[in-house]
């Protein structure tokens, strides 16, 4: 067979037809992937019943941050408390400071973890009682507020330079984020009317962070935050772009309080468990680090009188 015949035989139509049929079979095989569906019947219905839990002790963290942050910080403590006390403790998430206060007032919050200014509100108005307070990571029982601006803002170097500037604060009820700095401005003869504008971070939640972001974005000249907030946002912005103009005096830190009429045994169990947290214990340490404090110490209502005085000076209604 010569080359021409070989070529002819190679290209005869039977072979071509075979190739095409083979290709179709191959492609059909390729198209029909092993993707067999699971058959289900959507007609089999069920009704959702709300899970009603009995003897729930509610635990609320004043929403200075987002609910997620609040959850991240405190869900381990709650898990710890449930284990240690045997109580059905659940974290709830008020959207605002006012809602937090209202829920304490209405008894929907059994354990309130709030700043001292809120505490004096719920204590003085709704008989909440402090039973413990925290020691911060910086080993401080007290805390303070900070006045910040953009690092490249050359017009603002001291508190006096804050006159006629726009100011964003955390919340009217925020101790570190508004009241402590306001007291600081008062002590320097600067009053609300001396500012060009005073605004509060929009809610709900993440209000401390929003103040930092607003100043960082240059939307406002200065901002007031609780000390430690910059560490919270350090992973999201370059904190060296923010300059701390001044810090307020130290005031008593965040406080655990109970609503009125909560069972004393419950209070005692919780207090005991909280005070038992030891930063040096491996298990407790991760709980405390997540909550951003190193230990819980006993507290009583008179510990927060300096706050009451400040509120009085500022003529802030309790």
């Amino acid at each position, binding site marked *: 067979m010569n080359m021409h015949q070989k070529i002819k035989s190679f*290209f005869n139509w039977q072979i071509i037809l075979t190739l095409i049929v083979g290709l179709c079979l191959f*492609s059909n095989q390729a198209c029909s992937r092993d993707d067999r*569906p699971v058959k289900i019947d959507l007609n089999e219905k*069920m009704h959702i019943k709300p899970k009603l839990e009995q003897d729930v002790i509610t635990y609320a963290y004043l929403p200075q941050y987002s609910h997620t942050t609040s*959850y991240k910080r405190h869900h381990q403590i709650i898990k710890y408390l449930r284990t240690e006390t045997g109580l059905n403790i659940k*974290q709830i998430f008020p959207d605002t400071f006012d809602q937090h206060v209202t829920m304490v007032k209405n008894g929907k919050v059994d354990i309130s973890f709030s700043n001292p200014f809120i505490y004096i509100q719920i204590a003085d108005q709704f008989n909440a009682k402090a039973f413990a307070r925290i020691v911060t990571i910086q080993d401080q029982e007290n805390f303070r507020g900070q006045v910040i601006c953009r690092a490249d803002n050359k017009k603002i170097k001291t508190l006096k330079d804050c006159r006629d500037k726009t100011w964003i604060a955390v919340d009217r009820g925020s101790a570190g984020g508004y009241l402590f700095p306001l007291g600081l401005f008062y002590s320097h003869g600067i009053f609300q009317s001396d500012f060009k504008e005073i605004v509060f971070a929009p809610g709900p939640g993440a209000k401390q962070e929003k103040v930092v972001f607003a100043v960082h974005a240059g939307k406002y000249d200065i901002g007031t935050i609780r000390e430690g907030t910059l560490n919270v946002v350090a992973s999201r912005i370059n904190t060296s772009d923010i300059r701390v103009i001044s810090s307020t005096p130290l005031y008593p830190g965040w406080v655990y309080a109970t609503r009125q009429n909560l069972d004393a045994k419950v209070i005692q169990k919780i207090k005991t468990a909280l005070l038992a947290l030891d930063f040096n214990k491996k298990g407790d340490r991760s709980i405390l680090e997540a909550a951003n404090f190193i230990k819980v110490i006993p507290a009583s209502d008179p510990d927060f009188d300096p706050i009451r005085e400040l509120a009085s000076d500022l003529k802030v209604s309790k």
Partner: protein
Amino acid sequence: MFHIRKIKLEFKNQIYLVMFSLLMFLGLVTFFIVSSIMQDTMIEENKNRAVSMGVNLSARLIEPILTMDYFSMKKLVDETVLLSNDIYYTFVLDNDSNPIIHTFHNGFPAQLIHVNKVNEARTFSQQYLDTGKYRVYDYALPIFVDTNRLGTLRLGLLTTRVEKITRRIMLTALFSTVFSILIAALAGFLLFRPMTRNIKKLHEASEQAMRGDLNIHSAPVLQKNCWDIMNCSQKECPAYHNASQRCWYTAGTLCKTCAAGDYAKKILSCQQCKVYKACAGNEIQSLAESFDYMILSLKNHLAELNLTKEDVSKQKALLQTILDGLPDFVSLQNQKAEYISVNQAFCTMVGKTQHDILDKTARDLFDFPHGSTYLKEDIKVLETGKPLVMETTGMDTSGKKWIHVVKSPILKKNGAVSGLVSSGRDISDNKIIQEQLCQAQKMESVGQLAAGVAHEINTPLGIILGYAQILQEDVKPGSQVLEDLQLIEKHSKICSRIVADLLRFSRRIQSTITQFDIHHAIDDVLNMVEHTFTLDHVEIEKYFGTDLPSVKGDEEKIKQVFINLLNNAFDAIGKNGRVSIRTFFDSKNHSLVITIADTGSGILVKHLNKLFDPFFTTKGVGKGTGLGLSVTFGIIEEHGGTIQVDSRPAESKSIESRQASDKAPWPYGDYNTVFIITLPVSKNNKLEKY
């Protein structure tokens, strides 16, 4: 078993079929591969889209879940479903797989809860569901806050969108493939059509060439030719307006850029020419052009070959004619001594036709033992390479023949013998002449000897004759002594006449050249012999021409010629006969002609050749010396004349026309022997030389 008959397709159709089949094949392969890839991509994109939506929704659901904000959760899941028609459902399960929120109306489908589970190690899980009405890709995504799982988001995507897009992709791919195939087929058709047309044309041209018709133009006609491109007007250029042949194939073009010579010598320079760059086509066009060129060259070569063939045939015929015209036989033999070519003389010699001779050896052609001998000679020449020259005898139909043979070897460049050329010549006549020459030389020697002897004995003979005559005066008449002396005198005179003849034969007699009248000389001779002739009743008839010119020569010698001829005539007649003497002037040859005829007995044919030989005589002993006609011949030759004899005893021929037919009528009446003498009368008579 089915047997499908193979359809014989033309090359053009084979190309189209193969091209279309390949396009179909590649198109379908491409279609299926591309559509498969696009389907996979679509499903993957759908999955990524679902996962993206799920991750986004999960993030947005964290806080509502934390706060157990059912309203927000419901709002989020409902909004998600509304984002796209293919999102069938969305719901959230808590860590105990209890539905928290969902988008179903009229209750939650219980079977959905457990069909797709995702553990903490995975970011999502996909499950393909068949609800009976729809087919759904179900995605399960865990909702995390840090490492704490809040629950599971489930998202159901109908396959309708994927199927719709897939169908659209398939259709688009199919249409694109079909369109591409059609475009490619059209392009291929347009591309291959000129190629297949050229190949078909080339094929037809080759068949035309095989049929012997070499007037072929398979190359396509160009849009522009060299004279257009070069703005050429040289009509004498062989490429000018020669559209059937490209200029780079044409020898002797007149372009300045063209190299001299044919294609092989000029193509390199032509390839740089703008004509070549503009007109040179693809390989098939070049093939067609080369084919045309080769056919043209073949045609020219064939024409030259035919001319050469004709010339060779003519030369061969001429050579054969020459060879056949040669009396010599010529033959050519190969290394096996077989005859491969012979001429007509050879054929005649062996008595066979050329066809019967070729491829045979000498042994096959000649009788034993000659054939074997000739073959041995041939083989010896072929083996030694040395030529052979010899004379040999042979017999043919006319009798014994003398043949001069030359056998020469044919040598190659390396000295080897490739054949043998033989030639042979019939030298029988030469041999006869040679014998005659020997005889003449012998006779000349005898003549010289005789002359010497005659000269030496002439004087003593004269003394003997003189004393014999003197002594007769002293003896008595009638005595015995006188008779003896008379006998001595008589024989002495015979001896004297013989000596005189010998001297004349040897030309030792001095000639006396004069201008004389031939009739006077004849009359003088007749006066001497007339009385003797009359006694025996021999009549002499004279027919003298008038106004004949005189002859320059030795009159006495001429008289001796007449005496000899008349004596011979008298001897031939004996008694009662006639002798005729006739003279006339041959103006054409400017000579005198004298004929002497007699009514004698004539001369035998066998004697005619020897008639003028010395010492040849038919007369009896003591009657003739055999020198008379010899002397006569010598005298006539001395005078620049000729002498011929015609005789008819029974058959008569002239000496000079012995080979001619003798059947012509005898022109001399009752005369049986005629001698015809011619003597030149020009002033430049040969005798003047003596």
